[in-house]
């Protein structure tokens, strides 16, 4: 165990897996000589050389397709998108190639690839650089979607993603890179894909969250606790496949739910969580489920407007109080 940042946890996951398996390599813009735009790949070029840590031109469609092609032959590429915003240019390869190859080849051709990089907003990056696309990728059969919130989960899940035989969309957070936490140095300690994690226990209200909204939910839970309200905080960790058991168990304990996410509301991840809960636990619900999402606007640059648009502890607290019929 060591305390390290989320960034270094990702770095350690890649380093360990590259040591373990010579078929694993990293490609993307600025991943090698620049050590990564966000320094997630720091030192990997020095350690593994240019064959396995590959700088690409700015050509998201091209290099992600090259990654998919390499994966079709059995290599295990990690394709870094500098941010997931730019992956829109590559989405044809993710959706029409990676997600479908196994199926349309009748099971002959797999695609063990990880697409990774930071998603969502950071600070004042404006409309084109501040978007959350997890609900899009989770919509697509054939993809797994993983979004760790803590350093330990970042390491354990990235290692699982690299070893997974399916294409995995792995969405990090620029605002999480500097957060610190205990991380195991056991190279065989994996966090399984498809398992949520109860980040706090409570009996009064469930807060479902993922990635950047996990610290938000935990702050909200602290605040609620001051009023004697105990929140059960469920960090999804994996968006697809969703850990329906963990969600429903929590609802069974609390009978009240708030779903928080960073992205926009319409058909967001939270909508699917709501659909699941009302379908499978209708009679357990004591109140409608409320969602807290980013404001349904392109992200504004001005810092006050941006702040107002975001999912924050106050909004989660307000929603929790409403599902408890306290306000």
């Amino acid at each position, binding site marked *: 165990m060591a305390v390290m940042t989320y960034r270094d946890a990702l770095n350690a996951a890649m380093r360990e897996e590259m040591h373990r398996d010579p078929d694993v*390599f990293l490609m993307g813009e600025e991943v090698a000589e620049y050590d990564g735009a966000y320094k997630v790949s720091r030192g990997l070029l020095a350690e593994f050389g240019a*064959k396995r840590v590959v700088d*690409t*031109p700015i*050509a998201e*469609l*091209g*290099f*992600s*397709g*090259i*990654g*998919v*092609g*390499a*994966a*079709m*032959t*059995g*290599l295990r590429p990690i394709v870094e998108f500098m941010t997931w915003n730019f992956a829109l240019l590559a989405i*044809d*390869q993710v959706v*029409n*190639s990676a997600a479908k*190859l*196994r*199926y*349309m*080849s*009748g*099971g*002959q*051709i*797999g695609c*063990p690839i990880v697409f990774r990089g930071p998603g969502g907003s950071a600070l004042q990056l404006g409309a084109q650089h501040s978007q959350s696309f997890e609900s899009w990728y989770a919509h697509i*059969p*054939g993809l*797994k979607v993983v979004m760790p919130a803590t350093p330990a989960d970042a390491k354990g899940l990235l290692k699982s993603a690299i070893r*997974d*035989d*399916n294409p995995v969309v792995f969405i990090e957070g620029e605002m999480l890179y500097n957060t610190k936490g205990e991380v195991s140095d056991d190279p065989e300690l994996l966090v399984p894909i498809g398992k949520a994690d109860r980040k706090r226990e409570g009996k009064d209200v469930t807060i479902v969250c993922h990635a950047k909204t996990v610290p938000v939910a935990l702050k909200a839970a602290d605040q609620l606790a001051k009023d004697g309200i105990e929140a059960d905080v469920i960090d999804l960790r994996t968006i697809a496949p969703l850990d329906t058991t963990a969600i429903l168990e929590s609802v069974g304990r609390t009978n009240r739910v708030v779903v928080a996410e960073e992205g926009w509301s319409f058909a967001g991840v939270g909508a699917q969580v709501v659909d699941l809960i009302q379908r499978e636990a209708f009679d357990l619900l004591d109140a409608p489920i409320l969602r807290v999402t980013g404001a349904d606007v392109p992200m504004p640059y001005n810092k006050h407007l941006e702040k107002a648009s975001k999912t924050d502890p106050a909004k989660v607290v307000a929603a929790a109080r409403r599902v408890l019929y306290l306000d």
Partner: protein
Amino acid sequence: MTAPPAMRAPAPVTPETVAVQTAYLRTMMLIRHFEEKAGEAYSLGKIGGFCHLYIGQEAVAVGTISALRPQDYVISAYREHGQALARGMTPRAVMAELYGKAAGCSGGKGGSMHIFDASLNFMGGHGIVGSQIPLAAGFAFAAKYRGTDAVSLCFFGEAAANIGAFHETLNIAQLWQLPCIFVIENNGYGMGTALHRSSAGHSLADRGAAYGMASQVVDGQDVLAVRAAMDVAIERARTDSLPTLLEIRTYRFVGHSMSDAAHGTYRSKDEVEEYRKRDPIHLLAERMRAGGYLDDATYAALDAETLAEADDAIRFAEEAPDPEPGELFTDVYAEMN
């Protein structure tokens, strides 16, 4: 910029090459019969979806793929039956796939546009124009990564040379010196759009040259010319790990897909007939006859044999069972298999 290499003169028809050329002829005939049978089956409603035939373009598949070794990779678009057969897939496996049957190469889940055979490194069968181009470079990347001398061969239409993936990939392939051969099958049309209405510039080969890539225009009706150009490209790939762009000029004698007439809307009957005079099968046969290495009996026997293979494929496909209903949910993820 590397100047495109001088084209080798096609090998003359000699007794030494007659076996090879007979094999080319046979494969082209097999493709022709297969496609004609597929077209008939489509018209009878036995094959569904989109179906794009390769009739007229046979020399491109045969002239290029015949130069490959087993470890090499092949990938194509949706007009890929001919390439699959040239790579050695059985007419049965391909036809059964067109019929959507469980015995089809992709288990009936792929269809005409998604022909795969992992055992032959036949990597599909792709329906999004241009999407196979970066995948092909990925195979070449993998070959180089592993230190093998495998090369990657990628087919696409001339209209696909206007899409971004083509350019992004060519730049990277040259930059990283990937052993990849990019074949533009320039059949003059992308659906109903003639080349000059979709593509600026003097020739598509120039687009490779802009990246310093060895690039060449090839007569795609002459299987020997195709093979000769391919030999140079393969050597460049295998020995020097360098890519090549071949613009192979050909013509499809039939409509874009089964729902498009051979002529009428965007090209005239006369035009099609003019091109049919350069049927790749007849061109090679005439040449072999002229050299005295093909007689009518051999030709007729090859024709009958390949027709019988196509007929057999149809019979096989007709009788083969559909996939089990439970197949709907398999092959989505690796674990579920």
